[in-house]
């Protein structure tokens, strides 16, 4: 398997007035194509910072990040936009759907900027929202909204799907459904999925689990036989 993401000794320092906050300290790892990764850690451990750096939403203070050999740590905003546009899909904890676009249109919007997108209708059917395609977010439940968000992310057909607490705002049953969707995507299209959570239960379904603490990557656990999402409990 090829490394899709290579991270070498990255640090992120925020200068907040007179206070220097080291959000991420000397983190290194590699992620392979098709891997399902869960990042665990308490609040403030640097999970989100790490995801932002991998996702091209922010730049490192030091260290190197490569996507398929292409350096991201010194890329311009324009290059980062291109990267996010074609290589990355995001799923946010609070969905971040466009309130004035229907479910279908929300997905369509992502598709229209992608190079090799999936079929919008098929993706919506896959997330079980074929009959809700014409609804606005305000007319959908939280779980349905999150499914639209997932559909929006995967319809772009990105190499890398980054999910920040995708189940955080959902009840258990809906959360499991969500994880199933993400797993399916990973398996079916051989895509890399990275989930950030502080919910240890989810970790069981990952190929590898990254444990973050205090801005450092403390430990990586490998699961040769990950648990299917249906069996995950929390």
């Amino acid at each position, binding site marked *: 398997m090829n490394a899709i993401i290579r991270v070498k000794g990255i640090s992120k320092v925020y200068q907040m007035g007179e206070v220097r906050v080291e959000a991420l300290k000397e983190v290194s790892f590699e992620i392979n194509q098709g891997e399902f990764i869960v990042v665990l850690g308490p609040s403030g451990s640097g999970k*989100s910072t790490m995801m*932002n750096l991998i*996702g091209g*939403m*922010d730049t490192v203070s030091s260290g190197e990040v490569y996507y398929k050999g292409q350096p991201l740590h010194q890329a311009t*905003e*324009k290059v980062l*936009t*291109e*990267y*996010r*546009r*074609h290589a*990355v*899909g*995001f799923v*946010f904890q*609070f969905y*971040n759907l*466009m*309130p*004035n*676009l229907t479910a279908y*249109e929300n997905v*369509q*919007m*992502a598709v*229209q*900027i992608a190079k090799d997108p999936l079929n919008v209708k098929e993706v919506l059917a896959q997330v079980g929202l074929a009959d809700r395609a014409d609804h*606005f*977010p*305000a*007319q959908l439940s939280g779980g349905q909204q999150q499914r639209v968000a997932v559909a*929006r992310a995967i319809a*772009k057909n990105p190499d890398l799907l980054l999910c920040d607490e995708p189940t955080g705002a959902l009840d258990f049953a809906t959360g499991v459904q969500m994880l199933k969707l993400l797993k399916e995507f990973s398996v079916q299209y051989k895509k890399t999925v990275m989930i950030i959570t502080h919910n240890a239960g989810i970790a069981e379904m990952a190929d590898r689990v990254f444990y973050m603490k205090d801005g450092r990557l403390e430990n990586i656990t490998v699961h040769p036989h990950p648990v299917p999402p249906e069996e995950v409990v929390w």
Partner: protein
Amino acid sequence: MLWRKMWRDMAENKIAYIACTIVIAIGLMTYTSMSMSKDHLFAAKDEFYRHYHFADGFAKVKAMPLSKAKAIKDMEGVDRVNGRLVKEVRVLIPSSDSEDVYLRLISFDETLPHRLNDVELLQGSFPQKNSRQILLADKFLKAHSLGLSDQIDVVIDGKQVGLTVSGSGQSPEYVYALKEAQAIAPDPRTFEVAYLPYEDMEMLFGQKQMVNDVVFTLKPGVKFADVEAKLKSTLKPYQLEALYGANDQLSNAMLSEELKQLEKMAKSMPILFLGVAAIILYIMLKRLVESQRGQIGTLKAFGYRNVEIILHYLSYGLLIGLVGGILGGVLGTALSGLMIDLYQSYFSLPNLAAGFSPEYFLYSLIISTLCSLFASYQGVKGVLGLQPAEAMRPPIPVFTKKNMLENLPGFWQIFTMQGRMALRNATRNKGRSFFTFIGIVFTFSMMACFFSIGNMASEMIMDQFTQVQKQDVKLSFSAPLPRRQAVRELQHVQGVHRVEPMVEVPVSLQFLNHQEDVVALGISNNANLYQVFDKQGERVQIPRTGLMLSVQVAEQLQVKAGDVLEMDSIWAKEKMKVKVERIVPQYIGANVYMNQDTLLGLLKQGDLATSVLLTIDSKQLVPFKDQYSTSKFVGNLEIRQEMIEKYEQLLASSTYTLWIMGVISVITGFAIVYNSSIISLAERKRELASLRVMGMTPREVMEIISVEQWFLGFFGILAGIPIALTMNQVLAKGMSSDLYTLPGTISPEAILQAVLGTIFAIWISQQWVSRKVQKLDLVEVLKERE
């Protein structure tokens, strides 16, 4: 602590608040500058009129004995009377060989203690008796760089006479020195007045103990109309040429008209700008309050009272109002200085000076503060009803319906997703869309009007000199001449192609209780050099019998075609009845037209002409002018090309003002569009940031905001067209006077210019907003959950 919060809130959106402050400042700048200028002009005028005894009545006769003129003093209601000799002469000035220069010589009686329309001495001294000295209008002296003791040569009865300049001065009678009502602006290079002792005048013109001009004041409480009829009959034997009160005195009428307009503008312009500023402020603060629901809830939870919270938000408006008011006051004071300078170049009021009026400064502060406070109160009063817990929850989104546009087959498909978001936003956020829409309508129609004023004025002039008056030269006689003889002589002059006689007679028209003094133009049969057109630009034939009235005259008299008027003229022996045949538009001047033979027949004065129009080879123009301009039969020689050039110069200077107004409209448009974009941006920060995270470029994200504005802009411009047309008509009507009428039309060019200006205003504001979109902090925005 709350003050600090306010500063930071404002700093975050400084451009928006600055734009709003600028709009307020512009409004108050127009208010203070116009009001201050108006006050100073009024004060200078009143003081000048009073101090130098501006007359209440004016009469011109062919000639009358001085003693008879003085006897008018005994008439009931008349207070003081001055008889004068007033004669127009051509001045031979070597430096200005291409244009004719005229001076109106006015006699003064140095023995009188309180001369009417007296002269304020500005340089040198009054002329000595019998020494051929002359006192020039100050502007004339300056325009020709003359000095004291310099000599100027004038032509009197065909003879060259040298006069020595003894000094310069200014009289209230010629504050706005126009040669005739047809002139649009004073031109001190070519026309001014000068003063000579009566003794010198009577000798130079051979009019011993005679006068041709009478000015008088009235006893307190007496009106001009009270003495008019009596004076008319008293003066009629001396061939009365004109009799009018101070209201109709040309200089005074122009000055009063200008002041009236200034006063009107000083009242209406600020309302426009303050209204816009109030709306901007209202929308901005309403938005601010909505976006700070959580904070308001927190404050309430702490135990802050409603009053305290409201006061906090009102202080935003207060600050903007105060800053805008002060800025407007300061700028207005500065601008009033410039305006006074400008007025001084047209109106010769010796004591006119710019100054500071604390009262308007104070008013502007009060107005802007109240206006801002009102707008902010309207914006924030919603806070009152909120419960702390409710306030801390975000308002419920209400996007659940599609709009009508989406049902138009094919329409919806042409838009990208960003475009659809934009259109949904525009149709759902009705209040703000309406505000932007109104702003664009306002920007567009203001620009269209400003641009069209320039076009209207040039249309007015081009119409007059390319369509109506086609002659190369107009020769006005100093006294009426036998018609056939004059035409015959001029036809034989080398280079002359066509000669058409004109009869111009001052008449007084009466219909019911409306009366109007105008000049009747007797147009010859088959006239080619003077033509009259209707509204559609079709040539109109002068009817064989009856009168043709210009629109202004018809409006004054409230007559329509078919009505019969009573016409009186100093030329006629008795009053005549004439029928109104037709009403036609006229841009420069306000006349009535009649067939020449018919008019002469009515007047029973024989076969006379007062002037001729002629066409001539351009090569022969200069010799012709040399030959005739000094002739004693010629009162005035007017060359069309020179007139056009003069008007064009005048227009060039007003273009500058129009550009300033255009820029102001663009700024206002910018402020409005920018503000509504900023609000859109703030409300949808999260959405837009999500899009950026998904890999959209700032440009693509910006599309959501820009499509919404182009959409509103498109309809704003469409709706602006009829509004601009209406505004323009009102404006044209307001600016028109007896002397000229602006055609209330907007040319396609003005519309196009305004469209470009509006597009520019929208575009420039989007450039600013687009910078904000680029600077969106993706990480920050996505972290927070409002």
